[in-house]
C-alpha cells in the first residue's frame, strides 16, 4: 500500500487545522453559512435530511486493518456505530455533529486518511478495480497510476472550482471491474506492441442522464497520462456549462459538442502541456510503485481446503459464489458481502469493521478493499485459510453467499438520508434481497450460470456451481 510521505502527513494536518478554525468561525458567527458551505464541502461534510454526513476518502478503495479499525472507532465514538461504504469506494458517516468533525478528521489523519475532495466541484476520489494487484487477468496493477492521479488532482489549483464534480476510474484488466465507461474519464489498461498504456474514455456517467463514455484516445503511454488528463479537464473547465448544474457534467459537454470537436480541443491543449511535467510525474510514479509490491505469498498444502470444500456444502456455496481467481493459484480473492438480506446495502457496524480488520491482518496480508459494488474485498487469501475466514465471517453475520446475484444490489442512501434524493432506495433494495430468498437454490444456480455466461465465458470456468454438469478436476485449481 501507499505510505504517506512527510509532505502528505503535513499537508493533511495543516488542512485539518485550517478546517478546524473554519468550523469555529462558523459556530461563533464569523462565517455565514454561504461562506462556510463551500469550505465544508471541500472537506467532505454535507448537510443531509436528518444530520450532517462526513464522506471519508478511501483512495481506490484500498485500506489496511489499522485504518479499518480506526473507522470502527470513529463510528462508535462520534457516530451511531456503523458506516456506509459507497460506490466510489468511500465510507460515509451519517450522524456526525459539527463541533466533532475536526476531531474526526484528526483521527483520520492519524491513520493516513482524510475527507478532502470527497465533495464539491472537484476531481473526486479516484476509483480502481477492487481486485487490483490480485486479479488473474491483470496486465498491471493500476493502483500506482491511481495514486499518481490522486496526488496530481488533490488541491490542483486549476481544478478546485470546476463546472461540476469529476470522477475518474481505472482498470488494469481486460474485464472491466471499474465501470470505466460510466465515468467522466475512464482509463482502461491496454497493451500495444508490448507496451502497457491506457485507452482513454470520456463523457460517461449515470444519474439523471446516463451516458456511455466515448473513446477519445485509443492509447496513451504512461509517460503522457497526466498531461493528457490535464488537457481533458482544462478543456472541459472552459467549455463546460455553468448556467445549469444538470447540464454541467462532461458527458453533456461531449454530447453537445461531439467527441470529434472535444478530441481536437484536447489534442491542441495536450500539445501545449505535453512537456510541462518535465519527467517529475514519472519519477514520482516510480516511487509510488514501490508501495504496491505484491505481498510475500505463502506456500502451503491445499489438501485440507479440498477436503473441507468437498464435505461442507455451506462452505462450498460461499467459496463458489464469493471468491474469485487470484494471480497466484494457491490464493483466492474473497468478496465479503455487505448485502445481508434485509440489511442496508453497503453498511457495516463497528464490530463488523473490527472483524474484517482482524481477518485482513491475520489472513489477508493486511489488505482490504472497498468495491464499487459496496462490498468488502480481501484481495489475498491463501486457500488453506478460507475455512477460517469463512467461520470468522459467519460469526459476524458477514458470510452471505450472494456476490454477483440479484440480492447483491447496489443502493445509494436515497431519501432515507440524502437531501438531493427524489425517492427512497434502501427499502426497495431490502425488498429485492428478501425476494431472492424465495428462489430455490437450484434455480439460483442456473440463473447465475446464465448471467455469467452472458457476461463472460471466462467466469464459467470459475463458477463450478453444478458439479454434475460442469466437472472440475479439483476445487483448489478451479477458482
Amino acid at each position, binding site marked *: 500500500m501507499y505510505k504517506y510521505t512527510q509532505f502528505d502527513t503535513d499537508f493533511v494536518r495543516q488542512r485539518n487545522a485550517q478546517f478546524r478554525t473554519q468550523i469555529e468561525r462558523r459556530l461563533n*458567527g464569523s462565517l455565514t453559512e454561504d461562506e462556510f458551505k463551500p469550505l465544508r464541502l471541500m472537506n467532505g461534510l454535507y448537510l443531509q*435530511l*436528518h*444530520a450532517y454526513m462526513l464522506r471519508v476518502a478511501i483512495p481506490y478503495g484500498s485500506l489496511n486493518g489499522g485504518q479499518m479499525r480506526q473507522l470502527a472507532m470513529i463510528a462508535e465514538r462520534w457516530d451511531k456505530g456503523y458506516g456506509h461504504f459507497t460506490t466510489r469506494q468511500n465510507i460515509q458517516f451519517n450522524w456526525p*455533529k459539527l*463541533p466533532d468533525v475536526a476531531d474526526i478528521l484528526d483521527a483520520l489523519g492519524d491513520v493516513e486518511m482524510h475527507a478532502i475532495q470527497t465533495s464539491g466541484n472537484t476531481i473526486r476520489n479516484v476509483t480502481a478495480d477492487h481486485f487490483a494487484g490480485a486479479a488473474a487477468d491483470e496486465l498491471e496493477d493500476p493502483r500506482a497510476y491511481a495514486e499518481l492521479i490522486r496526488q496530481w488532482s488533490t488541491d490542483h489549483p486549476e481544478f478546485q472550482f470546476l463546472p461540476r464534480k469529476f470522477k475518474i476510474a481505472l482498470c488494469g484488466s481486460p474485464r472491466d471491474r471499474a465501470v470505466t465507461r460510466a465515468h467522466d474519464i475512464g482509463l482502461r489498461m491496454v497493451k500495444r506492441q508490448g507496451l502497457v498504456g491506457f485507452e482513454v474514455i470520456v463523457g460517461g456517467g449515470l444519474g439523471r442522464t446516463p451516458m456511455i463514455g466515448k473513446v477519445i484516445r485509443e492509447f496513451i503511454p504512461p509517460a503522457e497520462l497526466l498531461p493528457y488528463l490535464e488537457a481533458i479537464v482544462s478543456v472541459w473547465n472552459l467549455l463546460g456549462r455553468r448556467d445549469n448544474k444538470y447540464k454541467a457534467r462532461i458527458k453533456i459537454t461531449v454530447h453537445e459538442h461531439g467527441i470529434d470537436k472535444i478530441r481536437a480541443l484536447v489534442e491542441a491543449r495536450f500539445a501545449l502541456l505535453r512537456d510541462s511535467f518535465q519527467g517529475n510525474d514519472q519519477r514520482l510514479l516510480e516511487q509510488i510503485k514501490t508501495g504496491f509490491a505484491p505481498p510475500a505469498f505463502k506456500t502451503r498444502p491445499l489438501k485440507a481446503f479440498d477436503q473441507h470444500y468437498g464435505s461442507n456444502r455451506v462452505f462450498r456455496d460461499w467459496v463458489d459464489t464469493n471468491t474469485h481467481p487470484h494471480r497466484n493459484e494457491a490464493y483466492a480473492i474473497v468478496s465479503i458481502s455487505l448485502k445481508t438480506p434485509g440489511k*442496508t446495502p453497503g453498511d457495516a457496524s463497528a464490530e463488523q469493521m473490527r472483524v474484517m480488520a482482524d481477518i485482513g491482518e491475520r489472513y489477508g496480508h493486511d489488505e482490504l478493499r472497498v468495491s464499487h459494488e459496496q462490498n468488502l474485498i480481501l484481495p489475498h487469501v491463501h486457500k488453506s485459510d478460507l475455512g477460517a475466514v469463512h467461520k470468522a465471517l459467519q460469526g459476524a453475520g458477514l458470510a452471505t453467499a450472494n456476490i454477483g446475484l440479484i440480492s447483491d444490489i447496489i443502493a445509494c442512501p436515497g*431519501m*432515507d438520508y440524502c437531501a438531493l434524493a427524489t425517492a427512497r432506495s434502501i427499502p426497495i433494495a*431490502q425488498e429485492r434481497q428478501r425476494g431472492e430468498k424465495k428462489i430455490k437454490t437450484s434455480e439460483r444456480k442456473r440463473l447465475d450460470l446464465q448471467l455469467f455466461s452472458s457476461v463472460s465465458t471466462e467466469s464459467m470456468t470459475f463458477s463450478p456451481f453444478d458439479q454434475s454438469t460442469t466437472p472440475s478436476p479439483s476445487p483448489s485449481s478451479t477458482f
Partner: protein
Amino acid sequence: MARPFIDKVVTANDLREGDVVYLTETNNWTRHLSEAEVLQDEATAKARLAAGSGDVLKIIGVYLADVTAAETGPEPRHFREEFRRTGPSNYFHGKQQRAENV
C-alpha cells in the same frame, strides 16, 4: 386566479447537531413538529421565515414546508417532510430513538 394558500411551518436543521427543527410561536426551535407554529397566510409566512433565517448561530438551511392542520398538530404534505419528521426507515435512529419527537 391566485392559488389558495397552503398552511406552512418554518423548518431548518440545527447548526451544531444537524437535527430537523421547527420554529415555534415563541421564537424557539423545537424538534417536535407538533409544537411548530402553523402559518396560515402568505405575509405571515414570509415574516416568520425572515425571522427564522436570522437565527444563524442556531440553525442552517431554513425554509417553509407545506403542512395540513390536524387535531394532533401539523401533518407534512410531502413525503420528504414526513421522512424528515420521522427519520430514516432502515434504523431505529434519529427521531425514532426519541419517540416523543415524532
